[in-house]
């Protein structure tokens, strides 16, 4: 604590010194006068047009007065207007994909501006931690995603923008109506702590749901990939940082933007979903006949399709007591339930895929208004989204609103507010995909009285629709997040910013299982209802002191930060069952049940941080950054509540050197950075031994018992990732080709790990800091302007990356162990978790499946206790027994080995534009467990539609249905290639001629058609190579956008 007080004192002394020093200076402090404060009398109106070098008018170019926030944007004809402007002002023109232009007004009233194409984006202002920087001044690896690429697609969440589009960023698209994408920057840096990047929204740390940020409000997303860029966020930055910048208003007349999108979504494929009637009958036959029962092989055959040498009498007499009806006898042999048998005889089948899957309707309506006066800018938006998923009952709705307000109170004080409110409706109860694949096609969906049939084919498999139809759910989340700030300009180029971020969230999840559900009738009786309420409040305070000065060839930029945060949440849950006189009131009438329960869960944590950073520029050629941060967090063991995270980086603008003389190279920058970051994301109470409660009834009283559910670790501490980054930025051919390459080498130490324990301790694991994990990788991004003609512009962006992960140490325990039939001495692996020193975390250690034993290999198979149709597996030590340590091998990797994305964008015939994004994740494998899953009930149900081996229909990839896997020591899991290539998005848009529109009072209007996931190539036998065991939606969207 002493040390901390010291730093607080220091920070305040710095501030007081600044104050004292300034007040001590009587006069002579001069600085550039903000233009907005100039006297109005000297101002004049100004209009202008912005075009590219092909004379095509540029829309959406931001035009603002230098050193102010006063600005506007060009319309579809490239025009802009300032009602009044200082004749001596300088205007700055910025547009994505063009070089920034500075132009002095010089008393003119009309300006013609030409902007040159630039794919390097060197003039772009990139958001970095606690500030912004020109891209050309960056020393670290930062990638910008411009949201305009995605404006015509229907996005549920901002992460939809990121899947596949950023080198080094691995993300898989979500499959549900709510969306949601996993995110991983530069590989997995942790074994058990979260590997999701932290999110910074408009400059402040954002702990809320990404779902609450409307993608339509987003201006850009910047991703901090290397340690030095992210290190200013210290203890939470090890997984990288995503900086989201939302739109802000520009001065000028108010603009209203309206966007309407209507979409349809369907599964990319339903082939895997379920077996149809014929396939189901075949499946049952093929399972039973290879099961090894006492019957002849033809016993389970359809009597009308017997093999030539088998007579119907042979077939009948194979049963001691055949049913007089051959078909009924056959179906009885196939274990058909009476209900199924009737349906078969009556030719009644259910197409479960049609019942469970649907074409989802997606609708999205957004309206936003922005504008500003001389001193105040505003942006306000309201969006409504209603998505139906591709599974019956899956639906997601939300209302999101944002208000961004900036006011210049006077020349030295600015204040403002960024606020967002989101209301999400997640009440979906999707139909069960698992039961879809298990239920028989010879089913009866409803009982005769119209109520749902719980077990549509007799028994075992519940109706996939039960809960969708019989459960009432009200699951909503409201979130309010704001950042309120004041910023003071001080002499000497110092500024001080104080911001306060409150965030509150209210979640309620109310459920009622009616007597038309198994839960409400069988598990509990006469209805079951629960109510969960959770509210949370969090605050965060940032104190930022910045100093920016140039002395000749020396440029300094200093940032100091003190941050503090506190989070509290309160959760309550209650429920009841067996409602009297009836369950009609559902979750609204909990008091009418006879067996209530309740449960509460409150959480609190606190944290604080100090940070200092300096950027130093020498002669605009040499750039140096250094930073240090110290973080405290209540969630770690009290032996280690603090940690320090330093970082440093250098960059060299080689092309500015006199000796550099290569004509076609416009820019060559070399970068190197080093830094250390943390990860604290393992839950606020991980260091405690927690006692759980159990309910007990002793025959007359309900009692509560407790037990210790996990082990304490008072020494628990941060996970630390230290990484090096080397990069280069190159621009060629008059800014038409830009290449960025980065290589990184990261090592995470003191991993937060759920360390396996022998369960005789009573615990299966303990949370501990152990071992180390290394990640190295390479990222390549190429942007090019391929064609630029008056009627056609063609741009491409290609990204390519790979990451190689390696466990460098685990528990530090040495000994002799066996692996792949070899004996090793050294640090011992964790076999329980399949963690091996020197191998990646995602390595697959399993049996090497060579194929499937065929009929003529029966003898060889029998040596292993196997039969034709079982897996043929490599026996490394040749001892005729499959033992895990001897015979399991490293057979592949679960994460993509290479990731490629290619976006092509076209603007043509003035009004049209199109883009196509191709993505490939290559070289990885994924467990395909249906092939070895529990099969004792295959004689009474169905499975998803995967292929299998039969004596006639041989396969070397898929085993027989009744395969024997018990002889494979440690178990066997088959893996299948899950690499894929997909056309992930395609957009085509048409901007309506503005002359036409303006007659209707519309500034601008655009029609767009887009498609997502419209084509995929993969060998994966399951639902979708990207999601694995969930169907992936294919979405078509028609959008209309206009502004007034």
């Amino acid at each position, binding site marked *: 604590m002493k040390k901390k007080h010291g730093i607080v004192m220091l920070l305040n002394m710095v501030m007081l010194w600044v104050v004292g020093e300034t007040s001590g200076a009587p006069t002579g402090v001069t600085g550039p006068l903000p233009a907005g404060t100039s006297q109005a009398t000297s101002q004049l109106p100004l209009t202008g047009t912005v075009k590219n070098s092909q004379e095509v008018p540029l829309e959406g170019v931001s035009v603002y007065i230098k050193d102010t926030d006063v600005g506007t944007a060009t319309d579809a004809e490239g025009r802009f207007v300032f009602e009044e402007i200082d004749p001596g002002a300088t205007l700055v023109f910025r547009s994505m994909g063009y070089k920034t232009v500075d132009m002095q007004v010089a008393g003119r009233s009309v300006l013609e501006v030409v902007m040159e194409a630039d794919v390097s984006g060197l003039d772009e202002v990139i958001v970095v931690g606690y500030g912004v920087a020109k891209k050309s001044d960056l020393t670290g690896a930062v990638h910008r995603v411009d949201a305009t690429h995605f404006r015509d697609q229907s996005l549920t969440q901002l992460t939809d923008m990121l899947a596949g589009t950023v080198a080094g960023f691995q993300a898989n698209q979500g499959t549900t109506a709510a969306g949601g994408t996993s995110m991983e920057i530069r590989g997995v840096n942790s074994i058990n702590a979260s590997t999701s990047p932290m999110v910074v929204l408009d400059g402040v740390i954002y702990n809320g749901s990404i779902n609450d940020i409307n993608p339509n409000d987003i201006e850009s997303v910047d991703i901090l990939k290397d340690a030095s860029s992210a290190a200013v966020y210290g203890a939470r930055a090890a997984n990288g940082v995503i900086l989201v910048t939302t739109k802000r208003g520009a001065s000028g007349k108010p603009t209203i933007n309206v966007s309407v999108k209507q979409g349809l979504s369907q599964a990319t494929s339903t082939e895997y979903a379920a077996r149809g009637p014929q396939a189901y009958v075949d499946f049952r036959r093929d399972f039973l006949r290879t099961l090894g029962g006492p019957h002849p092989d033809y016993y389970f055959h359809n009597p009308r399709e017997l093999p030539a040498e088998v007579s119907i009498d042979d077939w009948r007499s194979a049963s*001691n007591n055949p049913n007089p009806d051959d078909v009924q006898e056959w179906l009885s042999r196939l274990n058909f339930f009476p209900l199924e048998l009737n349906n078969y005889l009556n030719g009644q089948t259910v197409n479960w895929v049609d019942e469970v899957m649907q074409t989802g309707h997606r609708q999205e309506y957004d309206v936003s208004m922005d504008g500003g006066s001389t001193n105040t800018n505003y942006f306000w938006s309201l969006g409504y989204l209603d998505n139906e998923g591709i599974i019956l009952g899956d639906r997601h709705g939300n209302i999101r609103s944002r208000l961004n307000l900036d006011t210049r109170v006077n020349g030295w004080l600015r204040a403002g507010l960024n606020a967002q409110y989101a209301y999400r409706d997640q009440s979906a109860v999707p139909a069960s995909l698992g039961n879809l694949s298990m239920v028989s096609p010879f089913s009866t969906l409803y009982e005769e009285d119209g109520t749902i049939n719980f077990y549509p084919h007799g028994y075992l498999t519940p109706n996939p629709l039960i809960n969708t139809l019989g459960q009432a759910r009200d699951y909503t989340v409201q979130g309010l997040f704001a950042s309120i700030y004041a910023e003071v300009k001080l002499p000497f180029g110092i500024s001080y910013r104080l911001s306060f971020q409150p965030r509150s969230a209210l979640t309620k999840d109310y459920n009622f299982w009616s007597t038309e559900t198994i839960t409400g009738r*069988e598990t*509990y009786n006469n209805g079951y209802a629960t109510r969960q309420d959770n509210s949370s409040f969090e605050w965060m*305070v940032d104190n930022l002191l910045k100093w920016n000065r140039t002395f000749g060839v020396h440029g300094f930029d200093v940032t100091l930060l003190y941050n503090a945060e506190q989070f509290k949440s309160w959760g309550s849950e209650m429920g009841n069952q067996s409602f009297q006189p009836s369950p009609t009131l559902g979750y609204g009438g909990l008091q009418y049940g006879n067996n209530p329960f309740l449960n509460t869960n409150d959480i609190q944590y606190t944290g604080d941080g100090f940070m200092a950073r300096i950027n130093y520029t020498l002669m605009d050629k040499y750039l140096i950054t250094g930073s240090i941060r110290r973080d405290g967090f209540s969630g770690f063991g009290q032996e280690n509540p603090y940690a320090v995270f330093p970082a440093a980086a250098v960059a060299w603008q080689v092309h500015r050197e006199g000796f550099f003389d290569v004509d076609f190279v416009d820019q060559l920058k070399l970068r190197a950075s080093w830094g250390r970051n943390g990860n604290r994301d393992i839950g606020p109470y991980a260091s405690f031994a927690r006692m759980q409660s159990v309910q007990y009834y*002793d025959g007359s009283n309900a009692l509560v018992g407790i037990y*210790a559910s996990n082990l*304490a670790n008072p020494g628990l501490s941060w996970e630390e990732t230290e990484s090096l980054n080397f990069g280069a930025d190159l621009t060629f051919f008059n800014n038409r080709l830009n290449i960025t390459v980065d290589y990184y080498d990261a090592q995470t130490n003191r991993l937060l790990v759920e360390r396996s324990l022998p369960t005789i301790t*009573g615990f299966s694991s303990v949370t501990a800091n152990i071992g180390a994990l290394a990640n190295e990788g390479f990222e390549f991004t190429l942007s090019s302007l391929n064609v630029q003609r008056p009627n056609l512009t063609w741009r491409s962006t290609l990204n390519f990356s790979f990451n190689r992960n390696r466990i460098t140490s685990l528990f530090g325990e040495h000994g002799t162990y066996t692996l792949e039939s070899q004996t090793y001495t050294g640090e011992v692996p964790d076999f329980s978790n399949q963690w091996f020193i020197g191998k990646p975390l995602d390595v697959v250690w399993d049996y090497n499946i060579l194929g499937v034993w065929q009929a003529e290999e029966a003898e060889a198979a029998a040596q292993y206790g196997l039969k034709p149709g079982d897996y043929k597996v490599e026996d490394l030590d040749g001892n005729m027994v499959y033992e895990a340590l001897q015979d399991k091998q490293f057979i592949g990797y679960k994460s993509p080995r290479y990731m490629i994305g290619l976006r092509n964008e076209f603007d043509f015939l003035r009004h049209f534009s199109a883009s196509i994004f191709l993505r490939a994740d290559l070289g990885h494998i994924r467990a395909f467990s249906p092939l070895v899953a529990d099969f004792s009930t295959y004689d009474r149900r169905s499975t998803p539609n995967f292929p299998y081996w039969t004596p006639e229909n041989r396969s070397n990839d898929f085993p027989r249905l009744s395969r024997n896997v018990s002889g494979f020591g*440690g*178990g066997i899991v088959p893996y299948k290639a899950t690499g894929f290539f997909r056309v992930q998005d395609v957009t085509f848009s048409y901007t309506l001629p503005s002359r036409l529109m303006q007659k209707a009072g519309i500034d601008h209007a655009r029609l767009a058609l887009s498609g997502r996931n419209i084509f995929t190539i993969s060998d994966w036998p399951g639902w979708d190579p990207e999601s694995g065991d969930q169907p992936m939606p294919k979405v078509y969207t028609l959008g209309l956008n206009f502004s007034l």
Partner: protein
Amino acid sequence: MNTLSEKRSDMNGLKALRGIAVVTLALLALSCSKSFLKPEPKSFFTPENVFVDKQGFETLLITMRKDLNREQTAQKNFMAHQWAASEAGVPWLQMDFTRLTPNTDTYQQFVNQINDIFQMVRNANTIISRIDDIAWGDEADRNHVLAEALWHRSYWYYRLIGSYGDLPFVQEEVRGAKIDFYTHSRWAILNKIQTDMEFVVQWMPVSTAPGVPSRGAADHLLTKIYLANMEFEKAVESAGRVIDGPYALMTGRFGQDAADPAKNVIWDLHRPDNKNLPQNTETILAFVDRWEAPPEARSAGLFTMRVYNCAWYNSANAKDKDGKLGMIDSGPLYDSLGRGNPDVALSDYHSYMIWEDDRYDYRSTPDLRRADINWWDREELFYNNPASSQYGQPFDPQNMDNPDEYWARIYAMPFYKTYVPNKPDQMGQPYGSNGDWYIFRLAETLLLRAEAYYWLGRLDLAAHDINAVRTRAKATPISAEDVTLEFIFDERARELFAEEPRQNELNRVSYILAARNERGYSLENLHQKNWFYDRVRSLNNFYDHYNDLIMLGQSPRIEPYHFQWPIDDNIITANTLGRINQNKGYVGAENNVPPLETVEEGH
């Protein structure tokens, strides 16, 4: 230039800045107060704030009492495995024990249950290790709490060594990453729990609430431990303390069906509602599990009808003469017999052999434990499908698809033990509803003392105890010369089906015979030759059908080393700094080191 206005704005700025600096200072001071980073548990207890008084310790004892219901609740319960690995039954879904390996037990929990049981050991150890963390006002309070914790630990260790043999003896609460365990021999463990239990019997109360172990339960458990440890004289003594205590065999009608003249005392004894009745003087300990409890406080149910009854309604079995489904899973018959899976298919040994002697067979025996009213014999099955032309007529096995499997698929059901129908307000499949179940009962104490007498060669006394149990059941008394180990274990099977941990008790004797080098057994090659295997293999008729019975691709097969189950590989591999032995016969045993022969006294 506007220097004046600029200067003024600077001055304002300075004032404002001073104000902000003050606010900031205040914020910093607030956030830097000592407690700011101190974590605050809000909704969970930690050991530090639980074990501060007697109440805290007793709350943990409640969890341990509840855990006793794991013996016979839910489908894959511990007791079912004890009978599936015995003369009386086979695990129907997994009859080939050679498919049981240290890392797969497929549909059963032969491997996995060890992980659950060690959680109960952990709970006991939490109390044992922390017992002296507080100052006890009354030493007796301390000893009562400690005694019950030791009782639970000894109970579960007795079960563990019965199932798995040698194991590490964990005697303290583990508080960190302990991964250097070594195996103790079962003899070392027996010595340790014997010592512990000798303390326990002094401190357990004589009379307790239902489901709470008493002094009788301690003496009963100690008797088993003495027997296993070959302290036969002491076993006679401790059993005698129970038998002479406040217990008596039930001989008269009582409980919920007492007024039904068709039933008998054995029926009454095994109604779940009667097990913890005050008038039931035979109960030493029975766990409590009631449907009327709050949902979170009750188990999934006893599952006796699911686990032990046959799948008579299954379409392969249930055909009528027309080849159509004659027995169906609905109606009163279904509600009474339930949805047999079965997890334990019962053998002829249990259904017929043990009820036969020179004079009687299972039909004619006067033994109430095989009384017609108490069993549902397979001859009593009838076509219950109203749509069948044979509706109401007796089931004819000749109508089965494969009558050769009649013996295996349809067997006599010990209805008086398995019958636990759904409660009137309980929906769902009839599997065996919630109910109380015996852990220890006086009849077993008598049979334990009889066994102790047997080992001591006092066969007359042994016969006397056995006859106490037999005459209550109206079975013919035996004489001293009839007393053999085999007879005692047959009697246990007759009396204690689904109550005693059968495999554990058989193994107890296997070790005794081997230690005494009787009948050609020895400890050195126990995994190749043991009494358990010889008895199970010769008495369980399933194992004669390796070549003609296939269920789910497996045929009944057992080898001598299966007398103990494999130790979960994950336990062995996670213990990287020590060596936990695998049972001989299973893969991995080649890495064993000699087990520790004594348990060092903890702290």
